[in-house]
Every structure is written in structure tokens, then in C-alpha cells.
């Protein structure tokens, strides 16, 4: 019956509906492409600037493809500032925090979603409420706290807090775990598994995809962090990458050495860009889910 009706409607509606759609879609495609150009153009210009000679940088009319393409700046940057140590420091912080923090976060998410204990909901709400506390409110006492134990100008203030877990990850994993039936856990209990065994033999393998996406986002967040490092890291060899390139900007802008600055910034940008392009599916899915649920 339904098939007959649809057949009837397609016959009754003239081809212009399909054509209208096609025209709109082409129009939409053009608009989206123009928008995409706006999105990418500044980054392309950054790359192009990093390859230019000084004359090209300051030439009018503007030059997009340099007359002499020189990758020279990319070798120069390593000697003009603590770029290598900056990368190293960023890696140390990011890897340590994400690896250990993921462990603590998933353990906690397991407890919050699958285990019974007194005060479970109240504690969870309190943890979640801590997200509402703006960082500027706690950053001064935290700084004094770390200053009193002599951790200023070290990477420790950036690492230690993260090891205790990430509320967003806990929240996300907890939501994810609700779709895993309790019967699996009960069966494991009957089989005599300890809670730790349940965690790493059953739970963790099951939440791996969710963990992966959150871990990548967390890693990127730490890599790109600026306010934390600027508070605690003073000596150049201790600074993380973002700080190093900001200092490049501050020091070399006066000399108008923009190719140098842009080259350094590209180096800071590229790793996360590559990570994103490789893991784009997981990342985009993870964000879409968190937004819709929110």
C-alpha cells in the first residue's frame, strides 16, 4: 500500500523539486567552500610566511608563493631558542598526565557507575561541581601552595594535579559504562574475581574506544595549555612549547623576523594537527556525543 502511494507522489511531483534540490546543494557547496577557505587561509598564510625571505614578507602587493622558497628557517629555529627542550617538556607533562590520569579516571568511573557505596551520588555531584569553579579563583592559592613547597619553575605543578583524574573523562566514561550490562560484572564476581581484576580484565577493554577519544582530547588540551605554564615556568629550559613560541614572538617580532616566528609556531601546531587528522573520526564522534548528551 505504502509503495503504491510513494510511487504516486513521485509521479505527481514534477522533476523541478529534484532540480531545486540540486541547485540548492551546489549553492551550499560553494558557500561551504568559501567558508572553508576562510578557515584555512590564515594557516596557509602562516606556512607561506615561514618559507619567505624578508623582502617577500614585507612586499606589497602581497606574495603568497614566495619567490625563493626556503626551508632555512626550519633549521634555524632550533638554535634560536629552547625549542627542542620545549617539545620535550610538553611531552613529559602531556604523556605523564594522560597515561596516569586515564588510569585513575577510568578506575573512578568504574566505581561510580558499577559499584555500590554510600554517598555515591553526592560525591559525584561535588566532583562535578568543582568544574564550575573558575580557574582564576583557585590559581592564586594553588600558586602559593606550590611556591611553599618549592615547586615553582618545575614541571611538577603542571603534572601532579592531573594525575588525580579528569572530571570530564570520569563523567564521559561513567555515561559510557551505563550501556554495559551489570550481569557481566556479577558473573565475574561469582567466578571469584577481585575488583581490580574486574577492572582490568573486563571493564577497561570494553571502554577502550571511549578512553582513546578522551585521552587524545586531553593530550591535545595539555599540549596547547598556556595559562598553567606561564604561571609556573620561568627559566627557558623549563618552559613548555607554547611558552617557547610565545617568547619567540615577543623577542623576534621587534626584529621583524616573522618567517622565524611562523616556522616555530608551525612546529608547535603540526603535531596536534597530525594527531587530529589521524584520529579525526574518534575525536569528532566523541565531541558530538558529549554535546548532544549535554
Amino acid at each position, binding site marked *: 500500500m505504502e509503495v503504491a502511494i510513494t510511487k504516486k507522489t513521485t509521479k505527481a511531483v514534477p522533476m523541478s523539486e529534484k532540480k531545486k534540490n540540486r541547485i540548492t*546543494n551546489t549553492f*551550499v557547496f560553494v*558557500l*561551504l567552500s568559501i*567558508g*572553508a577557505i576562510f*578557515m584555512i*587561509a*590564515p*594557516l596557509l598564510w*602562516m606556512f607561506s*610566511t615561514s618559507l619567505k625571505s624578508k623582502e617577500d614578507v614585507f612586499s*606589497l602587493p*602581497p606574495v603568497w608563493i614566495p619567490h625563493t622558497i626556503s626551508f632555512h628557517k626550519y633549521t634555524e629555529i632550533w638554535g634560536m631558542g629552547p625549542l627542542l627542550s620545549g617539545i620535550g617538556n610538553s611531552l613529559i607533562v602531556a604523556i605523564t598526565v594522560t597515561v596516569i590520569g586515564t588510569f585513575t*579516571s577510568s*578506575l*573512578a568511573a*568504574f566505581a*561510580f557507575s558499577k559499584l*555500590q*557505596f*554510600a554517598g555515591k551520588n553526592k560525591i559525584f555531584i*561535588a*566532583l562535578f561541581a568543582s568544574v564550575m*569553579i*573558575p*580557574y*582564576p*579563583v*583557585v*590559581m*592564586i*592559592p*594553588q600558586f*602559593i*601552595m606550590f611556591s611553599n613547597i618549592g615547586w615553582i619553575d618545575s614541571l611538577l605543578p603542571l603534572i601532579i594535579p592531573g*594525575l*588525580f*583524574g579528569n572530571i570530564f573523562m570520569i563523567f564521559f566514561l561513567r555515561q559510557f559504562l551505563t550501556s554495559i550490562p551489570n550481569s557481566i560484572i556479577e558473573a565475574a564476581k561469582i567466578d571469584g574475581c577481585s575488583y581490580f581484576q574486574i*577492572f582490568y580484565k573486563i571493564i577497561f577493554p570494553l571502554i577502550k574506544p571511549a578512553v582513546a577519544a578522551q585521552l587524545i582530547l586531553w593530550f591535545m588540551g595539555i599540549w596547547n595549555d*598556556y*595559562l598553567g605554564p606561564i604561571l609556573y615556568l620561568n627559566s627557558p629550559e623549563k618552559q613548555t612549547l*607554547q*611558552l617557547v*613560541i*610565545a617568547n*619567540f*614572538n615577543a623577542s623576534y*617580532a621587534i626584529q621583524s623576523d616573522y618567517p622565524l616566528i*611562523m616556522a616555530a609556531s608551525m612546529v*608547535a*601546531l603540526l603535531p596536534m*594537527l597530525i594527531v*587530529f587528522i589521524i584520529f579525526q573520526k574518534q575525536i569528532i564522534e566523541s*565531541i*558530538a*556525543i558529549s*554535546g*548532544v548528551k*549535554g
Partner: protein
Amino acid sequence: MKTTSKLYRTEQRYAYLFIAAPVIGFLIFAMVPLLYSIYGAFTDWNGLGQMNFIGLENFKNLFQDEYFYKSMYNTIFMMLGIPIGIVLALLLALALNRGIPGTNTFRVLYYIPVISSLAAISILWQWAYNGDYGLVNQFLALFDIKGPNWLQNTGTVKPALIIMTVWKGLGYTMLLYLAALQSVPKSFYEAAKLDGANAFKAFWYITLPMVKPVTFFIIVTNIIGGAQIFTEINVMTPTGGPEFSSASVVFYIWQKAFGNFQLGYASAMALVLGLFIFIVTLIQFKINEKNSFDLD
């Protein structure tokens, strides 16, 4: 529960062990600093040991501080980017929802600014806004418009920052809207079509209300984030901009705390900011409650 079997007690013990890390972290890095900050706001704290109670003096000075009002004005002004971003993102999401070829590529391209390091982006845009050689003025020159020295002019520095923050956040907002649009049942649109609704009516009466939760989420989170804007200002206008016209509240807090070591004063300012965020968020939740509807 009065019944505490051994099994339950064991489970509870393990549970507490498992959540110990985040809870301890919460206490040490959120609770204690928060309380300390609240106390510190009422003292003449200067970070070198002095911490004498001075009552409401910090707050009195704060509300007579023209730089505070300037930074507050700047911060709120720059939130103008939020509605602009929302409209653009929704339009983009609607466009992308049509399922045209290249959807995935577009998604990636629009999202690249989002995952780019804010520091690197700020450096890039600082150069892009250069009065003579910057990308922005090059673009305007195509239309025979002579662009200003964006970051050096009191009238243009905030719009410049707004444009940059909209550019950077567009992909994220667009993704959220796209996910929301895809969860609207097609049957709604079909029913509307049968009732004779045109595309605009369908958008206004179906699409817009159905994505309201996402809109709410975006506005709330962007206001909370926008109130704390710092990195862009610190990198692009290290002195707070011409006549302090780009300095945000957090920038001023940072200046007072780590530049002048007026920790008590800075804490008071941070508290006022925190309260501001809290009240604004609460108001938004109340408004949202009033206007919500349930689907049957």
C-alpha cells in the same frame, strides 16, 4: 541502608579506594584553594607572608577601580562573538546536514582551527592584523578598503579579537549543531511539509526548538569560557591593549597577582568574577527552565 552485609562492605571499601584519587585531588586542588581564596580576598595578602585581615577594603577599592570596570567591560563586550558564532555555526551545520559530497572533508577543515594551539593562533593573528602587511588588510585591499592597525586602535582591537575567537570556535559549535540536527526525526519535517509549511517555517518551528538544548549548552559554556579569556589577550596585546581596551578580567587579575603581588586584591577580583559567572549561569538555567518543553 541498615543491612551492611560483608559483601556490601567489601564492595564499598574497594569503591572508596577507586575514587580516592579524584576525591583527594578535588580536596587539595579545588576545595582548599577555593576556601583559601575566599579568605585571602579579605586580607592584605602580598605573597611574602603578610596576610592581615582588612575586611571589605579590597572590595571597596575594587569597585572604585576604573581598570577593573574597563576589564569587565572588555570581557563582556568580547562575548558579542557568542551570538555571531552561534548563527554562523547553525547555518553551516544546516548546510552540512544536506549530505553533499565532501561533508567529511569540510568537517575536518572547519575543525582545524579548533584544535590548533591557542598560543600559535594568537601569534598568527597578531601578525595577520598587522596594519601594513597583515593578511586581514591584504584581504580588505582587494575591495579597496584601507584596513586600520587593528590591535593598536582602541576602536578596533576588541572587534579584531572577536573575529579571531569566532573563527577559532566555529568548527566546534558547528559540530555540536550538526549532531543535534541529525537527531531531529525526519518525520517532523515530513509532517510539516504535508501541512504546507515552507522551508523557513519548518526551520523556525521545528529545527530551532529542537536544537535548543545545544544552543543552551553552547551559550552557557561560552559565557563561562569567555569570562575567563586570557591567552589571546596576553599574546596579542601584552600590555592589555591601547588604553587598556583589550584587557580581560583574568588578564587584570594576573597582572595584579603576579605583577604587583597584590594577592589579596587579585583574590577579591577573582571572587567577584567567580560570583559573576555563577549568577549569570544560574539566571540562564532559570530562563531555560521556564521555556522548556517535553516531547511526548
